[in-house]
């Protein structure tokens, strides 16, 4: 058998190679070739990941991890970050999900972007993204992880602003970049803190040293964990840095599916799971993770309930679902968070791709209220979209979403750091989730048709959607009934600290199931059977106020505008012509003045030049004689 730990590099290298080919020669290649290179490179990396995953499961390595050291980047005074890849159960799951979903979305994009003039540019960016993302999850060293982290941030920026000719898209891209930058800065400071105190950035060694040197709850551990949490919050669009994600929907829909639903936005979840030892050492920060998760999932759930743009509903839903993952991380249910990451990647990618097909066949129509009745016009899209929505709403027993969400709710309830309050938040969120999911389904696909759909999606778009629909259902059965998934992840994470394991899991499952189904029924009642209730509610005085508040994502944008942006711009304006500038202006004036004087000496007259030589000689002689 080929030694698998020597092949890890292929996973990130293949998309990077694809990026290089497309970036250098893309404009000269025919479209078929571009798609072949773009999707093929990710496909290659998917096969490498499948191969790695299979051999990892069939013959688990000692210490439950493979390491491939490619080379040392620099080696200065004991600081020798290595370019090395680390494959343990956590990264196996991550790369499998990323490459499979990534490949399907690339395939879909080949059809979706068919008529776009920036075809090669699109695939180049997408390949660069997949390469960076795989670097991020495979990195053995936090520095390399940070490189991938910044790489995906860059690609997110480039792809949100992909249609850069529209100023709005450029603004959305900048907003995403700047807001996540706030988190990235915290993350970078966290890296400095970790390195200066523990002397390494190699993740496993770092975790070991942290456990040895830092007492639980010590100031340094809390600070380090809080700074990493800052990074995670920015990347994963959690409170208070969630404002960029809804605007990020300005990018092409495959981008929203890949980057802003399935992979990049979950990088924060991965980071916390990867450095879970630090968070265990800082219980206060870990509690904050849970609270942030619970608050985010509720706030975003309410916002999703009132949106009219199909993609914005999905964006708020993504924020809310990542909130679930944070909630799970916060109570120490690491495996449950990763499980939900996986199922979410399947059904959210599915929903986005379905939304993309709806939007493209309605000629760039995003407003749900102008859709309607698509059930008969786009039957395939309708069926798969409903499967995705059912999985998102966690329909009991059948869907993957149910098993992952149920696992989270159960562990939040039973964990020592969880409790009924957080559980109740999660349960309320579940009701909201099924409510907004089926509001979306009923408004879009039922009722009377308001716009005529044109054209059927091609094979390259239908096939990925069908596969994702299958995964959205089947994905749950890796855990139930045999607990394969958590068993596989067990070596990577400590078990959940249970407080009241005795209380029947089955009862809670039934409650969760009832809540989920009742949400769907409520949605049917409010949005399909008697929509006038919804109308009267949202048009009443208080109702319209709440509606507007939720619609604007709880007014965070306005709050930040008043609190941060306006004062900052004001300060910048006030300081524009301050006295410090005079120093630099002084340098400029002096230089220009001397230049004018010196230019005068360059008269072009030989006698003048000879005089210069003579004076120089006299001065030098003078110095020599006098000193």
């Amino acid at each position, binding site marked *: 058998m080929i030694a698998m730990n020597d092949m890890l590099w292929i996973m990130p290298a293949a998309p990077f190679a694809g990026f290089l080919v497309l970036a250098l020669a893309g404009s000269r290649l025919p479209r078929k070739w571009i798609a072949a290179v773009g999707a093929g490179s990710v496909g290659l990396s998917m096969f490498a990941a499948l191969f790695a995953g299979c051999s990892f499961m069939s013959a688990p390595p000692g210490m439950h991890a493979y390491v491939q050291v490619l080379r040392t980047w620099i080696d200065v005074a004991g600081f020798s970050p290595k370019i090395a890849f680390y494959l343990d159960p956590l990264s196996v799951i991550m790369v499998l999900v990323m490459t499979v979903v990534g490949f399907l979305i690339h395939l879909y994009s080949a059809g979706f972007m068919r008529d776009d003039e920036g075809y090669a540019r699109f695939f180049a960016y997408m390949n660069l993204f997949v390469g960076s993302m795989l670097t991020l999850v495979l990195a053995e060293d936090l520095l390399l992880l940070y490189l991938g982290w910044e790489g995906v941030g860059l690609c997110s920026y480039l792809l949100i602003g992909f249609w850069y000719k529209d100023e709005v898209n450029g603004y959305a891209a900048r907003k995403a970049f700047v807001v996540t930058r706030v988190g990235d800065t915290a993350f970078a400071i966290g890296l400095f803190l970790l390195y200066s105190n523990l002397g390494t950035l190699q993740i496993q060694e770092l975790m070991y040293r942290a456990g040895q040197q830092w007492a639980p709850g010590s100031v340094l551990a809390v600070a380090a964990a809080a700074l990493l949490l800052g990074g995670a919050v920015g990347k994963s669009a959690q409170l208070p840095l969630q404002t960029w994600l809804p605007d990020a929907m300005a990018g092409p829909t495959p981008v929203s599916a890949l980057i802003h639903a399935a992979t990049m936005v979950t990088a924060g979840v991965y980071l916390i799971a990867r450095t879970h030892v630090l968070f265990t050492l800082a219980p206060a920060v870990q509690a904050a993770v849970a609270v942030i998760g619970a608050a985010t999932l509720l706030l975003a759930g309410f916002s999703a309930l009132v949106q009219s743009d199909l993609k914005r509903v999905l964006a708020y839903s993504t924020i809310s679902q990542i909130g679930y993952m944070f909630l799970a991380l916060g109570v120490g249910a690491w495996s449950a968070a990763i499980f939900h990451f996986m199922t979410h990647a399947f059904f959210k990618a599915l929903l986005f791709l379905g939304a993309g097909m709806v939007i493209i066949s309605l000629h760039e129509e995003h407003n749900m209220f102008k859709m309607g009745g698509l059930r008969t016009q786009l039957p395939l899209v309708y069926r798969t979209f409903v499967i995705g929505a059912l999985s998102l709403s966690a329909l009991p027993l059948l869907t993957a979403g149910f098993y992952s969400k149920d696992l989270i709710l159960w562990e939040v309830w039973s964990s020592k750091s969880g409790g009924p309050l957080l559980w109740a938040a999660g349960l309320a969120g579940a009701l909201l989730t099924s409510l907004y999911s089926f509001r979306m389904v009923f408004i879009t696909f039922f009722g009377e048709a308001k716009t005529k759909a044109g054209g059927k999606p091609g094979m390259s778009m239908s096939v990925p959607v069908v596969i994702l629909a299958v995964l959205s259902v089947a994905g749950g059965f890796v855990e139930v009934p045999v607990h394969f998934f958590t068993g596989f992840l067990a070596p990577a994470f400590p078990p959940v600290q249970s407080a009241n394991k005795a209380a029947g899991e089955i009862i809670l499952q039934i409650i969760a199931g009832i809540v989920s189904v009742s949400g769907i029924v409520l949605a049917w009642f409010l949005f399909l059977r008697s929509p006038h209730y919804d109308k009267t509610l949202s048009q009443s005085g208080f109702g319209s106020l709440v509606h507007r508040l939720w619609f604007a994502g709880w007014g965070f944008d306005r709050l930040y505008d008043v609190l941060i942006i306006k004062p900052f711009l004001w300060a910048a304006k006030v300081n524009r012509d301050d006295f410090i500038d005079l120093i630099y202006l002084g340098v400029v004036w002096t*230089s220009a003045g001397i230049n004018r004087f010196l230019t005068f000496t360059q008269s072009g007259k030989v006698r003048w030049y000879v005089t210069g030589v003579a004076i120089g000689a006299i001065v030098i002689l003078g110095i020599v004689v006098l000193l």
Partner: protein
Amino acid sequence: MSASDITALLPIITPAIASVLVMMVIAFRRNHALTAALTTGGLVIASSMLLVMLPLLPRQVTPLIFVDRYAFFFMGLFFAASFFVVLLSYGYFAARPGRHDEFYVLLLIATFGSAVLAASSHFVSFFLGLELLGISLYSMIAYQRTDRYGNEAGIKYLVLAATSSAFLLFGMALVYAQLGTMQFTRIAVEAAALSVSSSLPLLAGFALIIVGIGFKLALVPFHMWSPDVYEGAPAPVSAFIATVSKGAVFVLLLRYFSLVDIHRFPAIVTVFTIIAIASMLIGNLLALAQNNIKRILAYSSIAHLGYVLVAFIAGGPAAITAASYYLAAYFVTILGAFGIISVLSSAGSGGRDADALDEYRGMAWHRPWLAGMLTLVLFSLAGIPLTAGFMGKFLVISAGAGSTLWLLLVVVAVSSSIGLYYYLRIITVLYTRVPAQVPEKRETPAAGPRLSLSGGTALVVLAVLLIWLGVFPSPLLRLIKATAEHLIY
């Protein structure tokens, strides 16, 4: 004189023989390509002779010449630079009317002179080498006889160089009068034995030698000739002045004042410090508002020699390494710069060189490769990382820091940032879009002819070297440590 003495001299003799040979071939058959090919061959053979000579080093051949690894390294550098100048000259002169064959004879003699300077250990060989170089240059500068500016530049250089040679000779005479010897090693020994109070004539002699050398290196205040000469001379000749001519004199300066330890004479160190500071600042300040690229390069060259002088003042092995690396990097960069000018100037029939900044406006949009190369060259001159110039400047600064020359280093930093202004100014000109104009624009050299094969090859090789030296400095550093650094042992 034994056979091994002759072998040791072969790299110096070969260019001389080649010049005679080329001259005789010209008498029978005038063919530009043939002459250029012979010249190239001569330089290649001279370079290979270096390897033949290598096992015999170090060796004193007559009191005049001392061939050692230091000379080995720099002769190699000079031959390589001359090689590139030949490549550039061929394309440049081929596009111009008239006979060009004698130019290569002069070039070979000048190269011969530079090789003599690299191995000189005596005032006589010093002066001979200097004049071999100088006299060939007078005619090379004015080689385009019908060009008004070329003639003006040639005559200016002749008059001023003669003046400076007079200072130099007088300085040598003073040293000889005081010590009774003209051999460097003996001067070093005798000067060390001299008490400071009785060494005034010696110091005066040194001061006058500095005047002579300062002129050739165009250091402030002996710099005023250089912009006029750079502007008037054909572009390949300007390249030769900036590289081989200045390099050879600097190599001699380094050898001479390393043997005669300048740090024993605080006054001399002070003089060099003042000259270095003045050169860095004034060179860069003069270039600020200049609109002629050749003049800008002349001013920038003044500043760059000031930077190398910092390494020279620092002294010690690190300084020799730094100076050698800096010179090599500067050679590559400035050859690239003048190479681009030569290539662009190949257009006109006996016209002026493409040296006005306006002619470069928007070049990036119709000649992207050349503009990219020029950008690279300017980055290297400014010392931006990943280019040869950055590594050179880094080594100079680290050598200066090693000898705690803080004042000089502050000036290096300040003047480099002033310099950044005019380098970046050229780059912005390159990338400014010119509004669509009437077809007249085609006549500007920027939209001129295709690259000649020789010029194009030279530019590609130089570009590769430029980045290679900036990214992988260690091979050249190893070479320098194995060769040039042996000066002080």
